[in-house]
Structure formats: C-alpha cells, structure tokens
C-alpha cells in the first residue's frame, strides 16, 4: 500500500477487486503497441490506436458510415445473392460457408456499393467486408463492382473503392478468376467517361483483387501498415526459402517501391479524398467539415 493510500480514509478506498470487473468490450488492447485502450475512445478515433497510430481493421458498414456524409445514401444492387454454381465442397459445403458468412455479417456477399456524398460531392463508393469469407471475390463481388462503375458513369460521379480481400474466391473456381477480367474491363468505361477512380488499399489486399481493379486506380492510396501484394508472404517464403525483408508487402514498402501514390491516415482519409476528387473533377475545394 502506498503512503498516499494510507492517508485516505478506508471508506473512500475503492476495492481493487471491483475495479477489474469491467464489462467486456470496454477495453481493447492494441495488437501493435499493446496499449490498453478505452473502446469508446478508440471508436471516436476511427479505430486507429491513439498511442501508436496502428490502423485496426474495420467492418464495411462502419467504414461507409465514417466515410460518407450522413445524407443522402442509397445502397445499390443490395439484393444480388451468391449461388453455389459448382456444388463446391471441401471440408465444408460452399453453401454452408455462405450461409454462415451471411449470418455472421448480415451481408449477402463481400462487397457493399453505395451512392452518396463526401463533403457534399456526389460519389459512388464500394467497400469490401473482410469478415465475409475473407473479402473474397466471386461472381457477386464482380457484378457489384461493375454496377458501381455503371452507377458512376450514369451519375457522372467519381468512384472510390476500399479493398480488403484475400483474393479470388476458390469455391467459385474459374468464375472467380474471370471476375478479375470483368472488373478490370469495366474500368475502361469509367476512363472513357473521364471520371476518376480512387482505389484505397486496406489491410489486407491480396491475390486476384490486388491483381485486378484494386491496382488500377487513377490514384492509389493505402492505409498505414496495410498488407498489399499478389502472392501471400507464406507462399513466397516457401518458394524462395528465405526470410522476407522487414516490412515486406506493407503499405510503406509499396510506397517506397513506387507502387502507390500515398499512404493516408484513416482520420484524414475523408477530407483528402474529397480534396483530390474535387481537383480531378475541376470543382471548387470542398468546404471543410
């Protein structure tokens, strides 16, 4: 007991035991710096550790919520559902995996597309939900991406897509591979319409998603520390049989190697994107929020 506590009358001492029984979910330990953070504060900080700046992964709905202006918002192609074309079965059936992912996330598939505004500017936004089968790209993701491009062209507004994906969805086999060609092809239409596409690479963006539309942004942005690449680090390690360099395939590594334009902190992402888009669209600077 410290000298101070000795001076404090016993009736206002707090019971050490009682202190530990905090409700679950109130505290969060940063996986990077191990700082114990108050959940509410972390949320106010857009799930960026206030101590070390580590960007935690965030869900798709929350991402949209903190990115778009509150009004207006219109979700596009929300009803498109995946089908088990091949009756694919590994240790589990694809059908069952889909049902479990839908139950867990409340989403139909791994990409959400919305029309909305950022700092008053009309945009179309696509956001991957990594919690839905690792954000993997199958037929639905490919189709919704194309619908997002169409919506951009129809409304003459720019496209912003936040990727978070392990790559192509194996359970849809070659159909998934073809989504790489489909999504990349669609971007030609956006380009022809003179509309910008900002691709935001978040943790992680790998495989077939990174090797298609995600690397075809007119401007390529990444969140700090995001893992971004084609082949997974474990596969590369097995192939080359050596330890990978420090920070390999992280956002900072990509910036260093000239693969992306900028690393942008999540807390200023909204403003930066609005400013860039306004310049690219030859519009006045957005009013600061």
């Amino acid at each position, binding site marked *: 007991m410290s000298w101070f506590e000795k001076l404090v009358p016993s009736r206002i001492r707090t019971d050490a035991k009682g202190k530990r029984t905090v409700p679950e979910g109130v505290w969060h330990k940063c996986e990077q710096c191990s700082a114990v953070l108050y959940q509410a504060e972390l949320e106010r900080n857009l799930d960026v550790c206030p101590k070390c700046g580590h960007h935690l992964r965030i869900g798709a709905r929350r991402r949209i919520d903190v990115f778009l202006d509150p009004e207006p918002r219109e979700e596009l*192609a929300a*009803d*498109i*559902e*995946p*089908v088990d*074309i*091949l009756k694919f*079965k*590994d*240790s589990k059936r694809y059908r069952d995996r889909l049902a479990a992912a839908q139950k867990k996330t409340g989403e139909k598939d791994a990409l959400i597309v919305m029309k909305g505004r950022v700092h008053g500017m009309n945009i179309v936004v696509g956001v991957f939900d990594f919690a839905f089968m690792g954000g993997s790209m*199958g*037929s*639905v993701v*490919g*189709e919704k991406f*194309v619908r997002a491009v169409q919506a951009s062209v129809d409304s003459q507004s720019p496209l912003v897509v936040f990727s978070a994906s392990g790559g*192509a969805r*194996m359970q*849809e*086999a*070659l*159909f*998934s*591979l*073809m*989504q*790489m*060609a*489909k999504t*990349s*092809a*669609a*971007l*030609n239409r956006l380009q022809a319409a003179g509309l910008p596409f900002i691709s935001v690479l978040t943790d992680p963006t790998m*495989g*077939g998603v*990174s*090797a*298609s*539309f*995600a*690397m*075809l942004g007119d401007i390529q942005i990444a969140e700090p520390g995001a893992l*971004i*690449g*084609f*082949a*997974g680090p474990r*596969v*590369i390690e097995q*192939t*080359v049989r050596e330890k*990978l*360099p420090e920070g*390999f*395939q992280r956002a900072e590594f990509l910036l260093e*190697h*000239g*693969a992306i334009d900028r690393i942008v902190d999540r807390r200023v992402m909204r403003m930066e994107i609005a400013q860039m888009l306004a310049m690219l669209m030859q519009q006045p600077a957005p009013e600061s929020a």
Partner: protein
Amino acid sequence: MNPDYLEFEQPIAELEAKIAELRFVAEDTGVSLDEEIEQLEEKSRALTESIFAKLTPWQVSQLARHPLRPYTLDYVAHIFTEFTELHGDRAFKDDKAIVGGIARLDGTPVMIIGHQKGRDTKEKIQRNFGMPRPEGYRKALRLMRLAEQFQMPVLTFIDTPGAYPGVGAEERGQSEAIAQNLKVMAELKVPIIATVIGEGGSGGALAIGVGDHVMMLGYSTYSVISPEGCASILWKSADKAPDAAEALGITAPRLKELDLIDQIIEEPIGGAHRNIDGVTRAIKNALVASLNRLQELPTEQLVETRYERLMGYGQFNDPTA
C-alpha cells in the same frame, strides 16, 4: 518406372517396353515376330484407350504438366512461318518465361505471345519453370500494343503454373502488371485468340488470356488456383489435391460445359506429345477458322462483343432482374 510415362500410364509403358524388346530380338535374330508385335501393339492401343477414356481431373492436370508435352515454341515452329522473336519490356529485363514475336499464319502477319517452360534443367531455370515475373507481363503488354499499332491479331498460348511468387516480383509490382494487361486486353483493337496448351495457372495465365475466342487443348487445365494450393488451404493438406482438382472443375470439357471457354481442341489418345503433328494441325485449323471469323467483324463490334462477353462472366441470383 519409365519417366516418360505418368504413374497411371505405367501399364502402357510396360507393354511398350515389351514391344521394343521383341523388335530388338527380331532384328537381332532375323526371326519374324510381326504377329506377336502386332498383337501387343493392339493390346497397348486398347489399354491406352481404356485408361484415357476415364481420366480423373487430377490425372488430366498431371498430363497438362507432362515433361514431354509440347511447349509454346514447339507449336510456334510447327504452325507459323517467319517467327521473329522480340525481347524485353524496355524497363527492367527480358523475362524468358514469356516469349513473343511476329510471324505469319498461312501468310497473315500475327503477334504471338506465350508462356514458355524449359525442357532440360538449365533451360527450366532460365525459363523459371514458365512462371513469369512482372517484366514478362510488361513485355507481353508492349507486344500487344505493337500488334494494335500495326493491326496484327494477337494469338496467345497459355502454359504456366502461375505468376512467380518471389520477393523481386512483388517489389516490381506483380499485381499491377497483371491488372494492367487485363484492362488493356479488354479494349485492344485487334482480335485476340487465347489457347491453353498446358497449365492455365490462375492470374498468371489470365494475364495473357483475355480474348475474343478462348480454346483449350483436350488435356490442358485452367484454374483459379492449383489443385495442390487449393487443397492445402481448404483441406489443410496438399494430399487432397485430387479432391481439389475434382471440385475446381479444371478440365476442358467441364469448363466448356460451364461456358467459360469456347472450344476444345481434341488431343490424340495418350496426349499431345504422342502425336505432335496431329495436334499441331488441329490447333492451326482452329486458329485459322476463328481468325477468319473474327477478322470479318468491324473493330468496334469486335471490341464491344468482347466487352459484353467479359461482363457476362459469373453466376448469381438477382431478384430484381
């Protein structure tokens, strides 16, 4: 075990060895063994037919990687004239896992781009086992642009385990290189015909595989991931590769059924390497026929049809449609 034959082909190898032995004896002794030899040859044919009549997808994927299988340059030498190889991506180096150049197909100038595997150990290493790095895709892209500039159709030959998973490949932007090809091929203003001749391995294959007409040799495969890779991720064991091969539906007949490819070029029983002349003729005929058809289309229609075809990929349920 005879290395020229796969494990499931070993009974054929044994018969063939017997036939060779009889021939040797006949030559050596002058005794006519024609009747016996003929009988064994008939037996070997029947055996081959019965084995090849019910190949599993896993067996087909082994055939697609058969060490004797003809590679891109083997076909190029047989099908085209005046092949002139063009090298390099103009930025970093010449990736020998992808070859390209101009040539004539029945007199028509065309651009050829294909994956290339090596035959002996030295060449295998040089060609990186047919696994391209970004500079390979960028060389391919450069050649496609060149083809467009001079109105030459692009004919690609796909045969790769996949893009090379290496540190340098990532540093030089493997993803971007593949993605760029997909985007450019979608709107290239000349006909593109892609033929899978061996392994169609994932993004590394697709990066030269977007086209107006996609063909596969009878015992080639095309897949989003190798059966081994898929098995080790989804089954947690590479030993389940035969199951993964089955589930992924990687064979030509299955992919034709799913409407993901346009045409199957049948191979002789035993595989392309047992009768390269026959396969060559079949590929050439198929190329000439589809090229004739595609060259009749006005450029705008060609590109639009290709776009519609790409947009049609995928199956899903849209309740509002």
